[in-house]
């Protein structure tokens, strides 16, 4: 103990005795960190090693990969969360988030459902190159798109588009299989009836369970189709769910769906606090966004320089994260939709375009930190990773 005047303070002798005793009788610190690391690892493992146990064909363009843990343990998750696959596709090390479509109370496997995307390097790789018995590496479950019992209404309206059905499948399956006192009305938009993933299961569940209702919305139906068609207008939503006041709204789908549906919900008088949206991938066609530099071609190539001197080219229409990955530079990433900030990097010089609404911390903006998955070069850049 350091000597000091406190040794003359009233009560010092008692304190000194207490210190002496505590050093004698307290247990020693052994492996504190190990115990905690192991527990945290059960909830939030850094990495999961998965094996493809089964592949289920859902539609002509979508398959479900049923994934089991190589080491036998899959962490719990909340219906609506995703895992991020870390993989090499087309010679490029990259990562992609996929919502878990199986329900959370069974953890023998996670299902992810992959839909083919034109030029989708990773989706095509998963659909064409991955076979039963193949292995994959992923993050632990993550994301903020789930029913939160603290604030959400027990009656949910889910608006899904295309492959945006996957988080809702997990929620729907959980509600019906666990007999939860909650209800879901699903409005599910697709181009044609053939594109609808899980259609038969959804029809079947909606017949068997009172607390699940299903309204497919087909954009370009055949003449024989009698259900809802077109897009999800406020009118359609109001017609099928009747009272919007006692419900929470969840939206997941391609970017244009939010652009359309959010104003529609606003028009129905649904306050923002009762609308939850999944950040579902980086925006498509960033060069069509408001604020994109006039006259800048999406294929215009800029130079990106790293702190170690390496220089690479990057097209204006491609995110900095993708450009780095194309050149073999792996930046940790997770949601790849601008939200989680995992792929945060610093611009030492140069400018990027960031779509509106990407949640970047105020002081990050000030010092040039950007979420590289939703940052597009509009000048030559120097970046710190």
């Amino acid at each position, binding site marked *: 103990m*350091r000597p000091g005047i406190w040794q003359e303070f009233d009560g010092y002798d008692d304190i000194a005795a207490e210190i002496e005793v505590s050093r004698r009788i307290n247990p020693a*610190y052994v492996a*504190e*960190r190990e115990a*905690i690391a192991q527990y945290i690892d059960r909830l939030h493992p850094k990495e999961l090693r998965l094996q493809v146990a089964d592949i289920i064909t859902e539609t002509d363009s979508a398959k479900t990969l049923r994934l089991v843990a190589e080491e036998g343990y899959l962490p719990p998750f909340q219906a609506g969360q995703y895992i991020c696959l870390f993989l090499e596709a087309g010679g490029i090390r990259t990562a992609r988030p996929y919502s878990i479509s199986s329900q959370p109370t069974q953890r023998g496997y996670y299902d992810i459902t992959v839909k083919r995307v034109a030029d989708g390097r990773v989706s095509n790789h998963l659909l064409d190159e991955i076979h039963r018995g193949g292995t994959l590496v992923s993050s632990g479950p993550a994301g903020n798109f789930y029913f939160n019992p*603290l604030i959400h209404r027990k009656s949910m309206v889910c608006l899904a588009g295309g492959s945006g059905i996957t988080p809702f499948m997990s929620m729907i399956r959980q509600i019906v299989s666990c007999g939860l006192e909650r209800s879901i009305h699903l409005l599910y938009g697709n181009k044609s009836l053939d594109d609808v993933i899980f259609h038969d299961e959804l029809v079947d569940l909606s017949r068997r369970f009172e607390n699940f209702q299903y309204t497919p919305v087909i954009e370009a139906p055949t003449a024989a189709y009698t259900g809802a068609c077109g897009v999800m207008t406020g009118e359609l939503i109001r017609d099928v769910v009747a009272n919007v006041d006692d419900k929470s709204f969840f939206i997941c789908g391609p970017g244009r769906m939010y652009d359309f549906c959010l104003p529609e919900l606003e028009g129905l008088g649904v306050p923002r606090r009762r609308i939850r949206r999944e950040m579902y991938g980086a925006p498509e066609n960033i060069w069509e966004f408001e604020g994109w530099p006039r006259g800048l071609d999406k294929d215009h190539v800029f130079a990106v320089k790293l702190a170690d001197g390496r220089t690479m080219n990057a097209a204006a229409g491609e995110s900095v994260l993708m450009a780095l990955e194309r050149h073999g530079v792996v930046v940790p990433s997770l949601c790849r939709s601008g939200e989680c900030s995992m792929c945060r990097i610093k611009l030492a010089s140069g400018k990027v375009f960031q779509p509106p609404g990407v*949640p970047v*911390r*105020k002081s990050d903006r000030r010092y040039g930190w950007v979420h590289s998955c939703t940052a597009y070069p509009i000048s030559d850049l120097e970046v710190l990773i």
Partner: protein
Amino acid sequence: MADYDVIVIGAGNGGLTAAAGLARRGAKVLLLERHNIPGGAATSFCRGRFEFEVALHQLSGLGSPEKPGLLRLGLQKLGVLDELEFVEISDLYNVMTADGFRLTLKTDRDQVLATLQEAFPAERTALAAYFDLLAKFAENMIGAFIFRDPEPSREKYPQLYAHALRTARDVLDEYFSDPMLKAVLSVYWGYLGVPPTKMAFTYLAMVFFQYCEFKPYHIKGGSQALSNAILNTFISNGGQVRFNCGAEHITVSDGTVRSVITESGEEITARQVVANASPVTVYTQLIDRRHVPQEVLTELKGRRLSTSAFTLYIGFDSEPADLGITASTNFLMATTDISDGIVDRMQRLDITDEPVVLSCYDVSDPGFSPPGTCQANVVTLKYGEPWLRIPPESYNDVKYRCADGMLQRVEEIFPGARARIEEIEVGTPLTHMRYLGHPAGSIYGFEQLTKDSLFFQPGRHSPIDGLTFVGGWSGDCGFEPTLNSGLAAAKSIIKKL
């Protein structure tokens, strides 16, 4: 092999100021951080349209430009002061109970005394005497320690010698009989992490003195703005930082640090290592046992891990006034109990009648959250250990159950607030374990019992040559002490290079 003058492990408050202080003095410094962002607890995260402040409630020690506190002077020297905007918080705190008790204390000492005397007329004289004691005690502390009196004595500093090692509860019991008054006067125990029965009176006196003298502050952009500003200074001065890069091992030979091995297995040599990690982690995990002197382990054994916290980060779609929130710092009090019963509450999972603090930054800084909204950080202290007993698959259920208990407390005092929640995130002791990596999710380093109070702390020095500790594990916790610990470390380490 890469080589640096100094490697700093951890970019929390202490690690950041140490790294920046050293880089500004010309040292070649590498800063390692296992997370992807600087700050440690001094950070923020985004949900929807909100950016939530994680840890800072009332910044102490700053003072005004005319009357600067030590922290302001330190940040100025570091070159970050002009980068930041501070907002003075006009209230010391507000105490509220479900049955309608309301007491708002302003930050002026005389006004505090007058307000309390009006609310507790029977304790009028006792209050005057107690406030006199607080003032004299602070004067004693400053004379003896801040100005480092070379010849201190009991005659010069009678209050210091008599009361420094008493518990806060003991002193309050001596002066007062009204249990409500005692509870109102001791709410700041929450900023130290041990109840008044175990906390040194010194802390209670000095926290009051600090906030009345130098005022509590809020930082525009939150504590992340501070962390980012310090990191920016570090980088501008040639410092190298690696995020997503934890330290796995500190190599020691002949009682001297030699290198750090990162989690990716790279060995980097350095003459000095600054650890912003806990001594528990450093001495039991990072350094081979055979290089750790027995005296260190014995010393360590005498200390216990402090409490963790349970926090709700709430984004409301209303202005504070519409919710009935009129002060920045609100202690929601369910009982006047300041006995060891507090410890029992901290050791159970559920939230029923524990003291809760609700900080609403938008009251002092209306631009903090988007227009028409505000955010609240609602926290109570909870030990981490019970959380490790929850089966992982039940974790979310328990988390929501506890959060629900806390929301009921908020709703009791701010009726209707719950219906205006747009975003909510729950931080449990496990969240702190995950992000801070502290054993037991401790947020205040080692437990600050009276026997571990400022005079008896481990300090930043290690018997291992070239190893220095900074941050809350080496001394007092909270923003001001941890920031200052790094500044002081930088000053002393530069002399050894």
